[in-house]
């Protein structure tokens, strides 16, 4: 069965850029799902089989950190790996994200190679 990725970002443009970077990185997902904030991401995870999540941190309605917390409390989805993608990659915020289960962080701007290095071990 093919693999699926969920891209979570309030910017439609950034979701397109991440999709393009996944293709440039040579990571072949059969399904690319999108969500505009943390709550939408939880809804998508509840309805679809997803192998990995790439999530922004600063989003309206439900931030990336709030999404991680909510996901960690749901046994059905808590083990799906999440990688944060954000301009906010200070040690404090990344440590907080990792304490809620994030598997890594990618700083914007990013290269396709960095996407590959970070996601490869999780797939």
């Amino acid at each position, binding site marked *: 069965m093919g693999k699926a990725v969920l891209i979570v970002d309030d910017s*439609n*443009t950034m979701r*397109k850029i991440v999709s*393009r970077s996944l293709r440039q990185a040579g990571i072949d997902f059969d399904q690319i799902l999108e969500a505009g904030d943390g709550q939408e991401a939880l809804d998508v995870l509840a309805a679809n089989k997803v192998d990995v999540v790439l999530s922004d941190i600063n989003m309206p309605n439900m931030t990336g950190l709030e999404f991680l917390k909510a996901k960690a409390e749901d046994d059905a989805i808590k083990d799906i790996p999440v990688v944060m993608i954000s*301009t906010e990659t200070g040690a404090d915020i990344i440590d907080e994200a990792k304490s809620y289960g994030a598997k890594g962080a990618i*700083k*914007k*701007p*990013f*290269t396709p190679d960095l996407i590959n290095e970070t996601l490869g071990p999780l797939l």
Partner: protein
Amino acid sequence: MEFTKKIVETTEELFNTMIFLEVSADPPFAEGKQAIGCHVSAMIGLTGDFSAMLGIHCPETTGLAISGAMLGMEIEAIDADVKDALGEIANMLAGGLKERFAAEGLNLELAIPTAISGKSYTIASSTKNNRVIIPFNIEQGQFFVEMKYNLN
């Protein structure tokens, strides 16, 4: 504080990693040249150890070229995608500057970017603020990165 050097380095890094357009910087505008005419802009505030506003301002041709390259598609008119792309660029430029200033012990927080477009408008600011405007060149023309700042 080397604002010009930091802006040039951050802009070149962004264009090399995510936009894939060759970019070169011209010297900053001389003091007193305050107005620039453009068709699409994005701006973001920074607050903390000093306060600042970073903006990227593009004539139509360069705005379309930059956003098209970033999205990997041809864009024919300034639309929501172009403004969204410019907003993301402003956000990433501010993030890069935040990191460079943090390395010198100056902490900043980013606000939310705002993008505007119009047929032609002029950017002006109070001469009480410090202001750096750097012209950048891509094949399709020039765009401008501006930083206004007040040292607290």
